[in-house]
């Protein structure tokens, strides 16, 4: 059953980033599956009003004051009138907020609940509990998530974190990982087909060609913003030691940030200019071209909810050396990664292990691309997200969506109305908000009451009858039949059908390159 979905977040194109591309890819795949998706974000420089993106994604750029790092000023209520207008105009049924630091996302979820819509929240980041900023953010998150139908997290670690931060029922939280567009992260030499044997004439990259001689140069790639929490300090400490103990190794580092100066200083102090090349900031499209120059991807991050970049690196056929932090251990199988503790010594040791394994030819890196393609795809993400939508809108029966709780009458489900049965009644909502804290609970209740009054006021003075309904993207109707067939195939035969189609496209491309 098709839904009308509104994705709400401060983070969206033209700003680059992981959340942005997540929203875009998810939306476009949901549209492929026959849903209607609009995106609500704030206005960027030179990007205002309503825009259409590829595939008929409609983007509303709401004018808002931007305070810090493209995050809008939280003005709880001023967003409501225009939000209500968009929701009614687009006949939205489900509001899906992204990123826990975005005020548009939080406000949308509150307003949507006031308007009686189903809400989903996707958390992309990890937060601690210790510092003041985290405490404030966690309180706000608790406010918003007190009354949300379902939460999606990008990794199991992220789920644990979100459950603790917002005191959620763990069954209300689904884990749906990010994905990569594997097409955009193809290794330089690719076996032309999924089932290609090493002797296939098409594939120029036979395993024999990939086996590195003892004196051949191994290139280690680092693509990361150079911030403290990306572990740049570890990188700076480890590079000279790695280079000192492995003569035929060089580094390529792409990215910019406040730690770039330290990195340059390290290079100059140790006179490593010929073995470490700094490329400066890299656009997301260029990342693949940087990655394919190397053999090992080093990711010394200190915290990471999912770590899309290591999946991208593996997809490019790189062996990944990464720190065992956050959600990273869940992301890739053991034969693609070498884990290290976030310690200088251990990173040096792990990189050494990776280099010797690679030299021994024990890593089948040429298979990585196709494996990653099977692990992660946006179609799969969209399918799993759709199941969440089904669950909260009551299409899936309660027992099926929340397994192991009995017939919806187990202990706590009475106090925390579950999705599908999550009541919109104001008094029920107030009960949920009241539990947020001694003072915060009362404050939140006050906010919700004002929000409700504002809603009533708007219903009276700007009645629904006076708001025009937007026409849907015309292409959708034409392609609907086709889409459904496509989707049906995808569901029925797993990803086999799609995989075959893709590989056919590959073959075309290969041919073209040969010509």
């Amino acid at each position: 059953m098709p839904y009308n979905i509104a994705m709400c977040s401060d983070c969206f194109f033209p700003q680059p980033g992981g959340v942005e591309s997540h929203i875009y890819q998810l939306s476009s795949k949901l549209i492929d599956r026959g849903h209607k998706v609009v995106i609500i974000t704030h206005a960027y420089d030179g990007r205002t009003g309503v825009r259409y993106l590829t595939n008929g994604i409609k983007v509303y750029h709401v004018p808002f004051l931007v305070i810090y790092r493209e995050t809008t000023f939280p003005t709880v209520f001023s967003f409501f009138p225009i939000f209500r207008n968009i929701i009614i105009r687009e006949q939205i049924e489900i509001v899906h907020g992204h990123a826990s630091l975005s005020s548009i996302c939080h406000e949308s979820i509150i307003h949507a609940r006031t308007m009686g819509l189903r809400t989903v929240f996707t958390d992309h980041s990890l937060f601690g509990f210790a510092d003041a900023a985290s405490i404030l953010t966690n309180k706000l998150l608790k406010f918003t998530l007190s009354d949300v139908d379902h939460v999606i997290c990008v990794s199991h670690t992220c789920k644990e974190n979100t459950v603790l931060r917002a005191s959620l029922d763990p069954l209300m939280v689904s884990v749906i990982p990010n994905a990569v567009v594997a097409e955009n992260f193809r290794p330089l030499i690719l076996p032309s087909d999924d089932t290609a044997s090493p002797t296939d004439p098409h594939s120029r990259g036979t395993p024999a060609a990939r086996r590195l001689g003892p004196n051949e140069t191994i290139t280690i790639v680092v693509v990361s913003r150079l911030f403290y929490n990306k572990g740049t300090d570890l990188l700076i400490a480890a590079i000279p030691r790695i280079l000192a103990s492995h003569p035929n190794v060089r580094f390529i580092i792409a990215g910019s940030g406040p730690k770039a100066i330290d990195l340059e200083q390290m290079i100059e102090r140790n006179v490593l200019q010929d073995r470490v090349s700094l490329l400066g900031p890299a656009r997301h499209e260029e990342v693949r071209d940087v990655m394919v120059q190397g053999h090992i991807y080093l990711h010394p991050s200190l915290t990471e909810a999912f770590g899309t970049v290591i999946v991208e690196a593996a997809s490019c056929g790189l062996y990944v050396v990464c720190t065992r932090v956050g959600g990273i251990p869940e992301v890739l199988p053991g034969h693609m990664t070498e884990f290290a503790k976030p310690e200088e010594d251990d990173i040096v040791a792990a990189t050494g292990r990776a280099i010797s394994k690679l030299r021994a030819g024990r890593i089948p890196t040429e298979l990585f691309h196709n494996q990653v393609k099977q692990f992660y795809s946006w179609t799969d993400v969209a399918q799993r997200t759709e199941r969440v939508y089904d669950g909260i809108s009551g299409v899936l029966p309660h027992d099926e969506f929340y397994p192991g709780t009995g017939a919806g009458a187990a202990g706590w489900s009475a106090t925390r109305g579950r999705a599908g049965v999550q009541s919109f009644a104001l008094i029920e909502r107030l009960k949920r908000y009241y539990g947020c804290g001694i003072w915060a609970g009362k404050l939140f209740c006050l906010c919700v009451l004002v929000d409700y009054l504002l809603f009533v006021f708007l219903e009276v003075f700007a009645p629904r009858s006076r708001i025009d309904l937007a026409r849907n993207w015309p292409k959708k109707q034409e392609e609907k039949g086709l889409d459904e067939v496509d989707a049906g195939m995808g569901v029925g035969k797993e990803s086999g059908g799609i995989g075959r189609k893709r590989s056919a496209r590959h073959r075309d491309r290969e041919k073209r390159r040969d010509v």
Partner: protein
Amino acid sequence: MSTTTVQQNAASRQLLHNRTGAPDPSRLAPEDAFFATSPPRRVRQHSPLGLGASSGSSVRGMTEARRQREKERGRSGSRRRKRHWNKLLWFKQPYPDNYTDEETFLDHLQRNPRLQPYEFWSLMADSTVIIQHIASVIIFICCFVAIKEFEVSPVAVVSAGSISTVMGWILWDYWMGREEAAKVQALVEKEVVEDASSASSTSSLKDPQGLGLLIPNGSVSPRLGHSHSASATSITSNVSASSTGQSGSGTQYPPYGDPASSLSSRNKQRLATAKSALLIYCALLGLSPILKSLTDSTTSDSIWAMSSWLMCMNVFFFDYGGGTGAQFPASLSTNAAVMASAVMASRLPSTTHVFSITLFSIEVFGLFPVFRRQLRNSSSAGHRTLTYFLVIAASGGMGVIISNGGAVAAIVGAVLGSVLTFLVMGICCWWLIGLQKYKNEMYGPWDPARPIIRRHWDLTS
């Protein structure tokens, strides 16, 4: 799905099975917080979620199932009926997305891992630092009031202050000398050991040095490059430079290589200290007429209000922690106190008064904390004696000021003040210990890791 996937899934299952069999050694378990050597992972008695805890039968069923599963796992991994849930994202598991595994959910959560229950008497001992500072602030105020109201000679006050400062400095210098000698001794010993053990490893690393990129020692901060022999100098000279008060902050000492020449350098240091003390003395002498007229036109009410606030700032922002004399007391705190004294000085009748009170404030707020810190590290008996003395002096002074009386008022004030201070200390410590039970720190894999970086490389390069 192609055959490669199937194979690979089988391989991954094997791999996962291995992983679930034994707990991951590189990750911490909650028990690690309490036991130094963590015992084998126990089976959870009840789930952290409280799921199924409502009905006893389901709990029993669950544990039964778990036992069954474990038995099977012991026998053979491949014969399991349903695949065990794994905390992994890269392959599809036959569980819904919102499945919560009760055995592993929040497994890595640590609560209060570094909790050290406070002990009453050690807490009392630590709180003396605060008492000392507050007492010295009170003594300063008492002296000011005495100068202003009771016409005590300001020269007498400042002379007493200066004499004790000089005595303190001599004591401090003696301690520093001792400490320095010990440090140099330790470093020399360490160097000998290291040279013996790692001669081969460092020789290969010395390549980049040969290119003439050695940085002159004086111009870089100690955490940047230094040769091994010079690092000893940089540490010690840094310590002394920062802790001689204002005296050493601007000067650089030439490095020395061997402990034999340390005597001359310390003499140089003393000379520099004396020189800067003289400089400050003269500057203050010249500045005091300006300081006197600076806030002359402001009404007294504003002056008292402002100086009260500044003194409060001094007390609140003071750096009570602090290890060895490495750092200054927080500069904001010192600045606030000196500014307060400058503002208060404008209420005094003559330039001599202004000069005396400003110099006295520098001694009390600038130099005395350095001495106190060093004293605390050097001798605990001295620290305790100083605390008693300060508390008695401050409360006695308060008694005199409040009651306008003489020796009797001082004694009564001293006794009352000491008892009161002791009681307040006791109650606050007890209160803090009582508040400990509300402590709930949570750590887990989501926290940014603390990178462990050895600076050794930096020092040798």
